[in-house]
């Protein structure tokens, strides 16, 4: 009987330990994006437009704004953001504990002060929820630099 009890409790403790391990974000759920390139925006190989570096910088600012939940920075690179969009952005930042964004640029088309950047994006929410999806950024060149005019799928 004593041996049974000991075995039973060992089983319960083991079950709990395994579950807690499974539930530990540090064991399973750390962000998957580890890149030697410090930039969260990777570019395609081959010959790129001269404006590529500046456009990449804007996309890096976008990533930084999302990851740091900085609405002002977001507005600075997307000045056309409406009040409604700003409200939604604040609500989104509030609902997410953490967000890590990695952007992989697929194509970059620059014409007459406008750029169309097609990317795939991989977001890690709250350290565990991973979402990958395509996105298209429309950018325009302003005196202050390249600005995001529109974001679409």
């Amino acid at each position: 009987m004593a041996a049974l009890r000991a075995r039973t409790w060992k089983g319960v403790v083991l079950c709990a330990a395994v579950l807690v391990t499974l539930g530990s974000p540090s064991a399973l759920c750390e962000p998957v994006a580890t890149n030697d390139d410090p930039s969260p925006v990777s570019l395609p190989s081959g010959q790129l437009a001269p404006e590529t570096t500046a456009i990449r910088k804007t996309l890096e600012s976008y990533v930084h704004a999302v990851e740091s939940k900085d609405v002002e920075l977001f507005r600075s690179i997307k000045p056309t953001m409406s009040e409604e969009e700003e409200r939604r952005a604040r609500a989104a930042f509030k609902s997410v504990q953490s967000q890590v964004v990695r952007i992989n640029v697929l194509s970059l088309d620059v014409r007459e002060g406008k750029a169309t950047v097609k990317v795939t994006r991989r977001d890690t929410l709250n350290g565990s929820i991973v979402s990958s999806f395509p996105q298209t950024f429309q950018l325009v060149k302003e005196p202050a630099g390249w600005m995001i005019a529109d974001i679409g799928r």
Partner: protein
Amino acid sequence: MARRLVGIVGISLLVSAASVGADDKLAFLIPHLFGPTGLVVDSEARLPNGQTHSAHFNSAFQAEFTQFNVALASQLTGLPIPSPASGFTYTLDPTLGLFNRSTRSFGPLLSERAETIGKGKLSTGLHYQRFTFDEIEGVDLGNVPAVFTHDNPAPGGRDDVVTTTNGITATVSQVTLYLNYGLTGWLDAAVSAPLVTTELDVHSTATIRRIGTSANQAIHFFRTDTGGFGDSRSFTSSGKATGIGDVVLRLKARLTTVGPMAVGLGVDGRAPTGDEMDLLGAGAWGVKPFVVFSSTGRSISPHATVGYEWNGKSVLAGDPVAGTKAKLPEQLKYSGGLAVAVTGNLTLALDVLGRWVRDSKRLVPTTFHALDNRTTFPDISFVQRSENELSGAAGFKFNPRGRLLVDANVLFRLDKHGLRDKVTPLVGLEYGF
């Protein structure tokens, strides 16, 4: 991952494989409390024909208190599979490239909602719940009166009775592991496997009431340690068993969604994997189809569930000593409540849970009237009837980080019907993959 989780279930099953010896089965504790032949008092009196007097006394307590076993077993089957926390669902705002939580609520704790977890998603959890039963049908379990009457009672010597005061300490601890998997976007499959520990301690003080034999103590007495004629004797019996309880399999479908409202349909199938003789399971198959209504609001999400449970035959509902089976009572189970998202990390869950138990044996406090038409004692009897049992539940789900949830809940009675615990705590962890 799935392999690791299967391992956990395997460990639980292995742990439960051992059990106490057949003679120590908890279902026998009350029927055998006074010995294998029941309550027999000593007697030195002889009948007119010279034969010795067999002073055997009977009571509904010993003969029909199997209601206690049934009530206890039905509590074990009452713990619902927690709803997966769809509060972890995020929707993409495509014009900003930002994610917003579709609902802030992590859902109910001891009730259901119609939402499913999503195709390919897995949710798992471990809940610990401990019952310390206090009352049965409003009668304090520490003081259950029962009057034993003589075989073939009649005025005279057979007018004597034995009154007993019975105390029952019953605790049930339950660690339930559950897994919920999204087969499709609208259909979930779930399994819950409880590891149950039941502890039962029964004591009784029996006192001979010499209504018809006051002049002659030798007719009915309890032999004292010194060999004299005593009036009372104490009986005790206790036991403990641990093992796998009844495993429940569930299919739940989200039928339709209209705006924030959703309707779901599900069915629970209960397998008699728990040893009913050790009060670890109900000892019968059970099936419960149910319908769920729920609404997902930004902060407040109401929900309601109605289900009907059919049960097979179990020895607990029959006679554990004779080994005969009878049908466990059918139950209409219903619940309703609110999940309130206080913050993005904290959801309060409030529920009312009810069950209407059909045609089950119920304990009724009565007054025993002796054959002398003067003496009375408090007693119990049993009637067959349907009864409604209502409980309340209040708790919270807290999200410390990632997709981990810490659950805590108290279940409390709202009436005095059935076998009840004043307050039953629950703590647990949930994780969604």
